[in-house]
């Protein structure tokens, strides 16, 4: 069983799908691992470390793709590379299947079994394979660091002989995995943290990190059975905007993480809210890639709006590429070994299994995933 | 021999008294004092004999006064303690 790891081609993607430590485990489990030369370079892993771990290094990307029974990567494959894959190969990566219908069809056409890491269900049992969580977690940390670094003030309170510096105020919108980690990191740095989310259940979670939950009455909201937020009605969005305006106005840092899975991100922070902020304040928009929670944010740029900096980084986890690769890699390992059948030496992609049912998009030449099929 | 027994009883009671009271929150100092004070009105049990044993007049007068005083101590003591404690209770609950 050969596992192939092609180098990432997306610009700024510094992560790698497999790190040497995990490679070693796979080799020990009986897999043959081939890694394209230079894959791990930007995440801090040299080719030698892979060789030491038991992988072979290949410079021939095409043959590497063609021979892999399992192909592991971070980002979705180029449409023209799909054709190079083996018939029946299993391809595991992010896939964005909601928006990449064409790519999905191509994968099906070539008989590739494509697993989409975004589609791992968010159940307790699946958590160890849940790359969205593991990466969002790191993103939450990175956002706070970026904001703190940009801010012209310090986050903690300080009572010093030269006067008292009051703690900076941080407002986190959307307290999912990333939002919670952002809250925790900002709290750690000593900031006064407030947070808001449309799902009322997270109020307790926010408080469990020592932050304050901002109550805004939106009427009926809720979450889907998978734990994702439901989209808000336009009226609700308006109510939310009003309620948050005051809080945003007095915050030094605003961090938005509000995403609704598979759809464009809600526009939460509008231009007038940004205008109401103090000079020197910082806004970080995690949803910049899926449309942006913040008006005026732009991917991989720091936009200055009247002295307020809006930071939009499209690939936050890549900022801590070493750790992000380690976690992504563990997720893949857990996925592969969970379904690895020692006897038959195959991956047992049982459509009855709820995790496989969730994340397996194409199989045996067909789009098998219920949600994607009916899109 | 009675003295021996009485002394035994005295010694044991004193030890017991010391052991009984340990950490008492400040709010209970006054009620506890007042409650203990009411107990010391036990002299009443002795005063009955002085008042009712048909002794010389002076003795009976003294005894009756003793009964009156002891009763004040007992009745007043328990009632006042209860009043304090009831207030304390409702303040806590309210």
């Amino acid at each position: 069983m050969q596992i192939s790891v092609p180098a990432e081609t997306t610009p700024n993607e510094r992560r790698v799908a497999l790190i040497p430590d995990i490679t070693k485990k796979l080799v020990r489990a009986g897999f043959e691992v081939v890694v394209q030369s230079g894959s791990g370079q930007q995440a801090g892993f040299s080719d030698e470390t892979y060789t030491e771990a038991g992988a072979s290094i290949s410079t021939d990307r095409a043959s590497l793709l063609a021979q892999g029974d399992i192909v592991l990567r971070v980002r979705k494959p180029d449409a023209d590379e799909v054709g190079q894959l083996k018939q029946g190969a299993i391809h595991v990566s992010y896939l964005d299947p909601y928006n990449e219908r064409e790519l999905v069809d191509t994968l099906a056409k070539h008989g590739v079994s494509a697993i989409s890491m975004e589609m791992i269900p968010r159940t307790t049992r699946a958590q160890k394979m849940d790359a969205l969580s593991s990466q969002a977690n790191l993103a939450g940390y990175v956002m706070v660091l970026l904001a703190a670094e940009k801010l012209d003030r310090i986050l903690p309170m300080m009572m010093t002989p030269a006067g008292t510096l009051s703690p900076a105020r941080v407002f986190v919108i959307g307290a999912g995995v990333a939002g919670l980690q952002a809250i925790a990191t900002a709290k750690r740095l000593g900031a006064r943290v407030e947070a808001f989310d449309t799902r009322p259940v997270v109020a307790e979670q926010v408080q469990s990190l020592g932050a304050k939950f901002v109550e805004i009455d939106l009427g009926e909201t809720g979450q889907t059975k998978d734990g994702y937020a439901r989209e808000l009605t336009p009226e609700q969005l308006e109510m939310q905007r009003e309620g948050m305006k005051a809080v945003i106005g007095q915050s030094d840092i605003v961090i938005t993480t509000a995403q609704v899975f598979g759809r464009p991100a809600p526009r939460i922070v509008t231009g007038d809210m940004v205008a109401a902020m103090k000079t020197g304040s910082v806004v970080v928009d995690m949803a910049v890639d899926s449309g942006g929670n913040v008006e005026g944010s732009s991917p991989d740029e720091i936009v200055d709006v009247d002295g307020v900096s809006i930071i939009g980084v499209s690939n936050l986890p890549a900022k801590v590429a070493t750790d992000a690769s380690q976690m992504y890699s563990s997720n893949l390992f857990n996925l592969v070994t969970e379904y690895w059948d020692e006897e038959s030496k195959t991956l047992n992609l049982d459509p009855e299994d709820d995790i496989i049912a969730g994340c397996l998009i194409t199989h045996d030449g067909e789009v098998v995933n219920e949600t994607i099929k009916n899109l | 021999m009675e003295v021996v027994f009485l002394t035994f009883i005295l010694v044991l009671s004193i030890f017991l008294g010391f052991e009984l009271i340990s950490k008492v929150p400040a709010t209970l100092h006054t009620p506890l004092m007042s409650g203990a004070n009411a107990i010391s009105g036990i002299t009443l049990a002795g005063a009955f004999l002085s008042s009712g044993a048909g002794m010389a007049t002076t003795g009976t007068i003294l005894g009756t006064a003793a009964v009156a005083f002891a009763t004040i101590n007992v009745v007043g003591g328990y009632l006042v303690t209860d009043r304090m404690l009831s207030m304390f209770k409702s303040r806590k609950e309210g």
Partner: protein
Amino acid sequence: MDISLLANLAYIVSAALFIFGLKMLGSPATARRGNMLSALGMLIAVAAALTDQGIVDFQWIIVGVVVGAIIGATASRLVAMTAMPEMVALFNGSGGAASLLVGWATLYGSAEVQTFTAVTVLLAILIGGVTFSGSLIAYGKLSETLNSAALVFPGQRIFNSLLLLALLGCGIMACLDPSPDSPWLYGVLGLSLLLGIMAVIPIGGADMPVVISLLNSYSGLAACAAGFAINNNILIVAGSLVGASGIILTNIMCKAMNRSLTNVLFSGFGAIKQGKAIEGEVKPISVEDAYYILEAASNVCFVPGYGMAVAQAQHVVKELGEILEGNGAEVSYAIHPVAGRMPGHMNVLLAEADVPYEQLVEMDDINPRIENVDVAIVIGANDVVNPSAREDEDSPIYGMPIINVDQARTVFVLKRSMASGFSGVDNPLFFGENTRMLFGDAKESISGVVSEFG
């Protein structure tokens, strides 16, 4: 079965009820039930006492009980809630009077009085008398009928010594001739009452609760003595229970007021040193005594310094703060700008322990209201609370603003030794009248106090 045997069994039951009652009175949850139990015990004891075969005539008993019950019930209903302590003093005084009278009456009962009985009678008269007159004075001082200030006059100590001598003399003479008409007996009676007065007048109004508690203990002992005089078990048991538990309670109350029991016990016979600072005296305090004071405090201010950081005491400090808040006290943390060894040192630590930012106050905010602080707990701070920065022009740190903890009601200083701080300057705070030194590692000291609570 013998009726007196039955009565005595009833006494045993009532003794047990008293014991339970006292125990339960010590905890807020059970106090009220405790008081009822003890009242029930009293009812049983009194009923049993009425079966005594020595009683031939109930009429005077009824008179006495009715009069007493009316007075007691009325007084206890009418008294204002704020006047409770003086009311307790009055009740206590009547208890003392009752014991005195019972002892005295005993002399009229028996034809020939044994020496042992005579001694116990005299003790009942002595203790009862002191309790009675002492309680009246205490009442007077508390209700401000009398001047509540401590009354001191020259020669007081000599006068009191003579008084004691005279009492002893009269007592011995009365024992030798234990007749109810002996002038020595009246001597003892009069002198006892005088002694009660002399013992209480030199004590200031603020100390009165402690005095009443002590007199309460005495009234128990008086009942106990009366019990010996008339050979009654329940008087002995109940009396000595009250006597002993009263002493303990007095001690606890002293600690909560940060005074020592001997100080109160003998203040009538020594010179009164109130208000005079004893320069140069360091007063250490135990964790337990610190607990008693904190438990009674309603405004506590922590003043952390470098020592808190060294001891890594921030977490326990926070916990103590929360406990004190739970106990109804107002809690704040006063941060001096240069406390610690780097700017914001205290902030880092207190934030780590999750002390809410709202409870942190700056030096300039706490100083104007430091007089209202019952206890300022200085945790390993030194230079930043050194009054010589304010007062001593020659001090190298003169002119630096400090947190004026020396102006709080009580100051606890938690440090390991008398060593000086960063700037090497001696600190007169440690010798202050209202300062108590809690020596030891700050974390251990605070943990100790924390575990005293609960």
